[in-house]
């Protein structure tokens, strides 16, 4: 490829990256050092906004909750996604139909899916889950106001929404594992668990890493699911970082763009820290390939 053709092909991507990635990141960092309202240039306040965020116990609580939620969901999504992928991989003619049904939760917009999900636990709208629990116990579970039931409900919803993605990627990975290796393992006497743990999983660890990266990035930014599912998020300590950003910066027509920017910068840093092991692994694999 000639140098000119190369630049013609790559320039649109550079413009898009510059406009949609670098400028917003630059502006976010700039605003994090300013007291700024809509339509104003803002005034430089140094690290005041950082001090404000980092000394707010609500921010610490939201970071802990979000990181905990992310790690829990990631583990569940990978484990269940793998099991589902194995089951679907063994299906015959029914595979496209089952795949189509499983993918429904992934294509529904988060806020719509979360609202419908909340109805399962809300007596006002039937509360099917409450009815089922009522068969076994007289105890009313307060899904929306008690901390742990609410956490479980939020986690279940995110797993429900993300599981199809995980299953799909891992299914693609499974289909790429050479059958000869699995047959050879069988001949060598490897049992079912052994084949999965020592043959198949190592073969698709790149895919597992990819699912982990995407899950971490998605769950760290969870916001819209909480609107219907956690109306008492602030009270019961189930405020995610993104919801905290909204509540502090924009709720009631607020204009705390500086504080909101600080939280975004800190979120990016948290995201990077959590992604480092997976990115390092991916880079190692790329080098060895």
């Amino acid at each position, binding site marked *: 490829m000639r140098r000119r053709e190369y630049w013609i092909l790559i320039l649109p991507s550079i413009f898009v990256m510059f406009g949609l990635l670098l400028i917003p990141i630059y502006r976010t960092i700039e605003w994090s050092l300013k007291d700024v*309202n*809509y*339509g*104003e240039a803002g005034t430089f306040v140094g690290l005041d906004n950082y001090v404000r965020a980092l000394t707010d116990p609500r921010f610490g609580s939201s970071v802990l909750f979000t990181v905990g939620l992310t790690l829990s969901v990631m583990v569940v999504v990978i484990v269940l996604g793998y099991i589902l992928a194995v089951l679907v991989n063994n299906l015959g003619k029914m595979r496209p139909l089952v795949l189509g049904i499983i993918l429904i939760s992934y294509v529904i917009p988060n806020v719509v899916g979360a609202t419908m999900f909340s109805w399962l636990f809300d*007596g*006002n*709208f039937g509360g099917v889950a409450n009815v089922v629990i009522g068969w076994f116990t007289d105890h*009313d579970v*307060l*899904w*929306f*106001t008690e901390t742990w039931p609410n956490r479980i409900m939020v986690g279940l919803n995110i797993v429900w929404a993300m599981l199809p993605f995980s299953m799909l990627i891992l299914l693609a990975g499974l289909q790429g594992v050479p059958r000869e290796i699995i047959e050879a393992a069988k001949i060598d006497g490897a049992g079912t668990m052994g084949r999965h743990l020592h043959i198949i999983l190592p073969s698709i660890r790149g895919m597992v890493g990819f699912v982990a990266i995407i899950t971490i990035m998605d769950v760290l930014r969870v916001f819209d699911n909480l609107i219907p599912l956690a*109306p*008492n998020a*602030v*009270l019961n300590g189930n405020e995610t970082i993104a919801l905290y950003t909204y*509540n502090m910066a*924009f*709720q*009631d*027509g*607020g*204009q705390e763009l500086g504080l909101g920017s600080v939280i975004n910068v800190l979120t990016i840093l948290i995201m990077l820290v959590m992604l480092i092991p997976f990115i390092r692994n991916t880079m190692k694999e790329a080098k060895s390939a």
Partner: protein
Amino acid sequence: MIRRPSKKAALAVGIGAALLLSGCGAGSRTQDKNAAEVPCEFEAPGSATTVNVLAYNSSAIDPFTNTLVANCTTDEVDVVHEPVDFAGQVQRTTTTLAGAEGTYDILETYGYIIPENAESEKILPLNDLIDKYGDTYGLDELSPSMVEAMSYNGDVYAVPMQAQMYIMAYRKDIFDELGLEPPTTFDELRDVAQKIQDSGEYQYPLALPLLASSDIATAYDSALGSLGVDLVDHEAGKPNFDQPEAIQAFEELKSLAPYMDPQVTTFDQPKVQQQMYNGDAAISIMFSGRMNDLVQESNSPNFDKIAFAAPPAVVEGGKQYSTLSVDGWSIPANTSLDEDMLFNMIGSSVSEKASLAAIPAAYPARQGLVTAENSPYGAAANDAIENAPAAEPFPYTAKVSNAVRPVIAEVFTGALTPEEGTAQMQTIAQKVLDAE
């Protein structure tokens, strides 16, 4: 070769058309049926013009918005209103008023935020336009108290369209069966709720909108106002949370908790409506704009069992447990369109004919329009509007209320005692006032 449309294509077109049709009026619960046919005359701008209207969708606001859009759109002028909820309107109001140019040309606004936007000159005073067009649209028949609620420092900043105040809705069949009368004080409310609970028909007979992230602050303000105390001592410039009534308001609200769903801090007004629709609650108190929905057959099997009364006072002889909120149309200072044209649009949407068409969904701002005959909750609303605590029209009122809201929620749920909570609220509110 000419291809005949396939069945699949026809099906796709059919589905698309159905989606488009269902999308028309999306967000508008009343759609065009409450849009009155009224004249909307203004000097043509001379070129294609778009007028963007910002107004949240609710049963009480939609009739006025629909009237404005339906009658003021011409070949040359396109009046555009996108569906939005209240939180969205609050956010968009802030952003559109922030810069030298805004997105919207007509804003739905309310008494709570007018002082703040008027003081910062983000919305226009309308006195001259009211003088000029008052006779055309009969604006002298607007309720003086509602015009006052749209004013700041002697200037009128919005044309009032409708008011909302708390109304009590109750199940008349249950009350009749148990021989109960609508309560007029919190003492009576507790007594009535206890009797309904004891009858075994309802586990939680009372439903109030106490959503921790919004409504609970209005509820506390209403209780405090009913006890005769404002959020702020406006002369002294200090909050009133150090007054004994501040603690009493909490105690009175918390005393209702045994009669409400344990998850009531997640209830916004639609959820309280849902409780009444389902028959899960026998008594509710919420804004009047929500009342007409309760008696719609399409909403609930209990539509014909609902009766209305003014809300009770927290203590005997006090003002009612209520908040008066007046909505109106204002013109942002940063609009580039002709103010006369915009005012004519506003005027036509609040004309007598338009206001009458808005009943019973709304309580229009024109005096004497709402009666017991034309509105199922008309008598209750007329009583309630007379006896609601006075509004606090100051630029800092909304900021104080928003700032103390998380503490109010913590006190209500028992995380803080009323004494601890009011002490924290006093400090927080004082900071807000000092910053002003």
